[in-house]
């Protein structure tokens, strides 16, 4: 396994590896954004992920989330853990099957260097940002906002305000026939993961 691990990391910039391996990133939600962020960050060889979600896998999730038909009815955190472990065993996975609220953000994600917001509703996004920024004014939080629909690649962007990063078009709302679909959800999830790496590796070449 050590030989596989050495090969796994062999293409990375050697200066990135210790930072990557010591990083602990929180993902609040394991749906469209969260499951895709998790897969991408595990692919990078990130040291540890803390992932929380209360929900179970439904058929409607299969259109954009990293689950399989055989996992319908399973807790998302259990199904995702099993899928991530199939990629490789070098990322520590701490899963919590729980609904995140003001009281448990700090106990669950407090040890994380960066938090990635991957919730569904705008209300829960606001709750997470307010709670995280109040508790940890210096720790980054990366939010997804505006990712429904199709096309319009170039409207997707990242905006920074202090420690808050927003990925998405900040415009497209879920309404009528505009639903979240795999391409844009996947793009925004990967923008969030990419933003996390950029923060981690800042100043290192």
């Amino acid at each position, binding site marked *: 396994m050590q030989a596989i691990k050495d090969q796994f990391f062999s293409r990375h910039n050697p200066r990135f590896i210790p930072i990557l391996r010591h990083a602990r990133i929180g993902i609040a939600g394991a749906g469209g954004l969260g499951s895709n962020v998790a897969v991408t960050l595990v692919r990078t060889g990130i040291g540890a992920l803390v992932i929380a979600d209360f929900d179970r896998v439904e058929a409607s999730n299969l259109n954009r989330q990293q689950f399989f038909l055989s996992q319908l009815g399973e807790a998302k955190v259990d199904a995702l853990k099993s899928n991530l472990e199939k990629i490789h065993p070098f990322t520590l996975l701490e899963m919590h099957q729980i609904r995140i609220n003001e009281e448990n953000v700090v106990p669950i994600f407090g040890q994380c260097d960066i938090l990635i917001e991957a919730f569904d509703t*705008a209300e829960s996004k606001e709750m997470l940002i*307010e709670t995280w920024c109040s508790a940890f004014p210096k720790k980054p939080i990366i939010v997804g906002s505006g990712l429904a629909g199709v096309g319009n690649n170039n409207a997707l962007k990242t905006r920074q305000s202090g420690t808050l990063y927003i990925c998405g078009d900040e415009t497209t709302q879920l309404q009528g026939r505009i639903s979240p679909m795999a391409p844009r959800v996947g793009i925004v999830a990967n923008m969030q993961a990419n933003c996390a790496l950029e923060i981690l590796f800042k100043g290192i070449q």
Partner: protein
Amino acid sequence: MNIMVNGESMAWQPGMKVRDILNIRNYTFKMLVIKVNGTLVKRAQWDSYRIPEHAEVSVIHLISGG
């Protein structure tokens, strides 16, 4: 005297609050996050938080979907 709101210049008035910016700019979006000079101003403080001169304000729309 001016402040910057989402990169656009806006007139500043003494005693100006976060709520005034939302009203003047007609931000009616239900879920918003407001940052003033990089510091988050919680929803509960929107009526009381005073905007300093030359402030840099970010108004961020939070949209469901994920």
